[in-house]
């Protein structure tokens, strides 16, 4: 025996739509029996609308900007294919991405959203380092210039501190002097000795001549410190210059030039790479990567990118991080980048920021450059940058496609996947876009046309036609059904129009009907009737009658239209115009066989009949008269 009451109690019913989930759940009542109280609604319906990052206006603007950079890079890559994009070009695109990341940070800071500002700041921080390892630096050349720039950009607060002390530079109290020395030390740690030297002149409050001389000597040393630049120096020449400079620092140290000045002695020892001074410096440094920068600057200035990991490990131990598991996720990413383990970098970035923006764009840069794109994951042979790049694009593009206003940005990403891998998503998603206006529909169709989605275009146009019909906009519905190329629907809409009886269709629509494929009989009638109306407007009665007779002979006039069409006969009354016998006969037959007198009214029927009779009579008279004239002649 069937049981109607399903065991539905406690069930959660759901459906997943384009914009999110809908859930229907039953409120559990522990005191109830299995049967439900039918008098009350015991089921709740909850609609869950999926949020998207792009709902935030700052992030939306950021995503649009990044998509523009992405598209330009794809254009460049396609032009150069099968060659890869040069390193310098890829580096410039990477800097553009960083630029918009920094703009985003600034926007969030201005909006006082410190959490979001912090997130994107940190992302830019990691991105910059990954750019150094995978894009900018040359494995055969020193990494220090890039590394120093990275550290200095992110940890330099000298300008801020100095701006607050500007008015007191000439007469600093001890507390401000301490702050100023802190600035100078930081600049020295970061290798910015020239900038540090420029502040030294303010550090003689007592105007002591001895101190003046010491400061002058130190400033000179700081300014003379050689700074490596990959395009300006060869490594050999730089090493030679650096050794010479170091010797000079040692010499001045041994001559006790800075004796008695604690701060200058400290700086001198730092520049000599003195371990005790480095140990003291830890109190003044926030992170191991800053410390690593200092180590490289004064101990290993020509270290190559590949040796970074080894130096970093030693530094990390010195800082007390013995267990890598205790490091913050971002620091692990930095170490993986030092290992050139691009796949692990991408994996961890996605682990800790569950959105593919970073991984997609960075993987794409590496892919376009080609240098690391063939590297595979150590554990998973099948992972490669190219494959991951496509996967991230698919993920990001699919998410964007489901956003109300960002879907066109999604299209740009998806069409960059090789072998049309993104096309199925584009096809599925664009037909799910509910266009509220004709303009929106045309936008969707133009995208569909670009990809040749003819089936989807048919569906979109057909659905639009049905919607217009429902709204009573019959002529618009007709236009859309013609665009859909849907014969049965076009016939259906034309029938509806014709039932209205007036055939009151805009001339421009009738013209477009004429140009459209003749996909319905009704179309033939309407185009013929359009010509008839034009001739009537021009008072070309002969032509109009000829056209009308043609429509009658071809049996194109729908039955429902016969009465209304027949009414036009009353306008054929013209003494100066007589029609052919066969035309009058045709019209007469039409009037008496197809027209219902009760529909047009008896009086009107008689009137129409008499117009034809009169025209026939006049015709006979004219022909008799012309025969008479001939006889006379």
């Amino acid at each position: 025996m069937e049981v109607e009451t399903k065991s539905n109690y406690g069930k959660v019913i759901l459906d997943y739509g384009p914009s999110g989930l809908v859930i229907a759940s039953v409120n559990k009542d522990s005191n109830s029996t299995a049967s439900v109280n039918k008098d009350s609604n015991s089921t709740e319906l909850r609609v869950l609308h999926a949020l998207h990052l792009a709902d935030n206006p700052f992030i939306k603007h950021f995503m649009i900007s990044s998509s523009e950079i992405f598209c330009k890079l794809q254009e460049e890559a396609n032009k150069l294919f099968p060659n890869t994009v040069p390193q310098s070009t890829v580096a410039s695109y990477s800097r553009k991405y960083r630029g918009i990341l920094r703009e985003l940070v600034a926007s969030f800071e201005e909006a006082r959203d410190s959490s979001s500002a912090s997130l994107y700041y940190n992302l830019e921080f990691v991105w910059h380092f990954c750019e150094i390892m995978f894009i900018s630096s040359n494995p055969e050349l020193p990494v220090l210039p890039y590394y120093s720039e990275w550290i200095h950009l992110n940890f330099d607060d000298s300008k801020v501190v100095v701006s607050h002390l500007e008015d007191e530079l000439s007469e600093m109290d001890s507390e401000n002097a301490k702050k100023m020395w802190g600035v100078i030390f930081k600049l020295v740690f970061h290798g910015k000795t020239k900038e540090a030297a420029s502040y030294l002149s303010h550090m003689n409050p007592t105007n002591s001549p001895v101190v003046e001389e010491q400061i002058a000597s130190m400033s000179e040393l700081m300014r003379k410190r050689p700074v490596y630049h990959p395009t300006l120096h060869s490594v050999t020449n730089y090493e030679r210059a650096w050794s010479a400079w170091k010797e000079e620092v040692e010499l001045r140290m041994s001559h006790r030039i800075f004796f008695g000045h604690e701060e200058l002695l400290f700086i001198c020892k730092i520049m000599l790479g003195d371990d005790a001074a480095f140990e003291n410096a830890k109190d003044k440094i926030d992170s191991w990567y800053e410390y690593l920068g200092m180590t490289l600057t004064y101990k290993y200035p020509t270290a190559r990118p590949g040796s970074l990991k080894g130096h970093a490990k030693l530094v990390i131990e010195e800082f007390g991080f013995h267990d890598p598991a205790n490091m913050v996720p971002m620091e692990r990413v930095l170490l993986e980048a030092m290992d050139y383990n691009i796949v692990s970098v991408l994996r961890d970035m996605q682990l800790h920021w569950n959105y593919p923006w970073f991984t997609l764009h960075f993987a794409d840069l590496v892919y376009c450059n080609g240098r690391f794109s063939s590297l595979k994951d150590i554990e998973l042979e099948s992972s490669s940058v190219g494959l991951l790049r496509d996967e991230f694009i698919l993920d990001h593009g699919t998410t964007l496609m489901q956003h109300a206003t960002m879907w066109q940005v999604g299209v740009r990403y998806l069409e960059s996947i090789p072998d049309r891998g993104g096309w199925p998503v584009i096809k599925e998603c664009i037909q799910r876009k509910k266009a509220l206006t004709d303009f929106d529909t045309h936008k969707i169709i133009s995208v569909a046309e670009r990809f040749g989605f003819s089936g989807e275009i048919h569906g979109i146009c057909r659905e639009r036609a049905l919607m217009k019909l429902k709204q009573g906009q019959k002529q618009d519905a007709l236009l859309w059904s013609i665009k859909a190329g849907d014969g049965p629907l076009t016939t259906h809409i034309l029938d509806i129009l014709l039932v209205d009886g007036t055939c009151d269709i805009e001339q421009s629509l009738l013209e477009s009907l004429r140009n459209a494929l003749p996909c319905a009989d009704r179309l033939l009638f309407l185009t013929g009737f359009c010509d008839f109306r034009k001739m009537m407007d021009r008072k070309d009665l002969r032509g109009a009658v000829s056209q009308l007779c043609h429509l009658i002979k071809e049996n194109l006039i729908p039955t429902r239209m016969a009465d209304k069409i027949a009414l036009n006969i009353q306008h054929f009354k013209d003494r100066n115009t007589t029609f052919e016998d066969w035309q009058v006969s045709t019209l007469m037959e039409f009037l008496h066989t197809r027209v219902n007198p009760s529909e047009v009214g008896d009086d009107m029927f008689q009137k129409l009949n008499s117009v034809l009779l009169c025209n026939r009579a006049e015709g006979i008279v004219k022909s008799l008269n012309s025969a008479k004239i001939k006889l006379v002649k």
Partner: protein
Amino acid sequence: MFVARSIKTDHKDLIHDVAYDFYGTRMATCSSDQTVRIWEIESSTGNWHCTASWKAHSGSVWKVTWANPEFGQVISTCSFDRTAAVWEEVVGEGGGGDRGSATHWVKRTTLVDSRTSVTDVKFAPKYLGLILATCSADGFVRIYEAPDVMNLTQWSLQHEISVKVSCSCIAWNPTYPRHYAPMIAVGSDDTTLDTPKVMIYELNENLRRWTKIESLQDITEPVNDLAFAPNLGRSHHMLGIATKDLKIIALEPLKEQEDNMTGSTKLNSRTVAQCTDHNSTVWRVAWNVTGTILASSGDDGCVRLWKGNYLGNWKCISTMRGDGTHAVIEAAPASTGSFGANPANPSGGPTSSRYLKLAAAASQTKDVVWH
């Protein structure tokens, strides 16, 4: 992340099904109170309103499904009263309780072939035309067609498939037809032990009938729901099955292995995920429109979202209670993530410093969805 809105449905009894239309801007609900309700979202406010409500059957209405909008505003329902019905929204004076509204719903046909409760009804993918499949407790799947899409009063029974066990649910494979023949999955709630409860049928073009091409041997518990994932570029089909737990099955058509006599496809089925997180019977499954996320609901009152990576590993990415609130978020939300940190100025000076200190985050070792 989701934003939840509650809707007071005014159904007088349990809701058995809820279905979004193609665009997600309308919904239909059906209930044991024998009525169907149509809901529409107001785009400016995001609020849902009931635009129609009518008594659809003389028994509990089990399921409701929408046709593709290119056939118009058409739904179908199935019921304990042994019938399925097709309804169309038309313009004109409202009938029933909707007098004065611009549109109302009219019954176009009643399908009365079943001898028992009709347990599920689904429209076919649009490329097949206006076709409807029903399944019943009498063990039959029936496929109907409206040959003239402008006239929905005429439906003909095209095929009657004897499944031989009580059927509880049915799903069409939405895959584009270029590569595959039309395919249906049928689930059974039969309680016989150790017999397969999911059967896959394919329309054999040569024989012009539906033939069973696979019985999933791994699925031997009663099946409550199943759904094919939209296939946007995969070489195989994915089927989500709600049974005593959640299973995701990959069905790979074997190349050049067609049975030479009948032309049927051979399928290689493989369970890619068996998810027991609900710790109870799973009742419903539904895929998102791109076939990348599967939602499941269970007797634990929770809804879970599952996502697979390109290697075919599936992870739960979100758990929600039946009221839509999050129970657990398995993966860091995109808006924050473990990289979010409290800003601090290490020098203790003004907070207008350009850099923000990286605070230690309490990270948990987890696998990413994609790796």
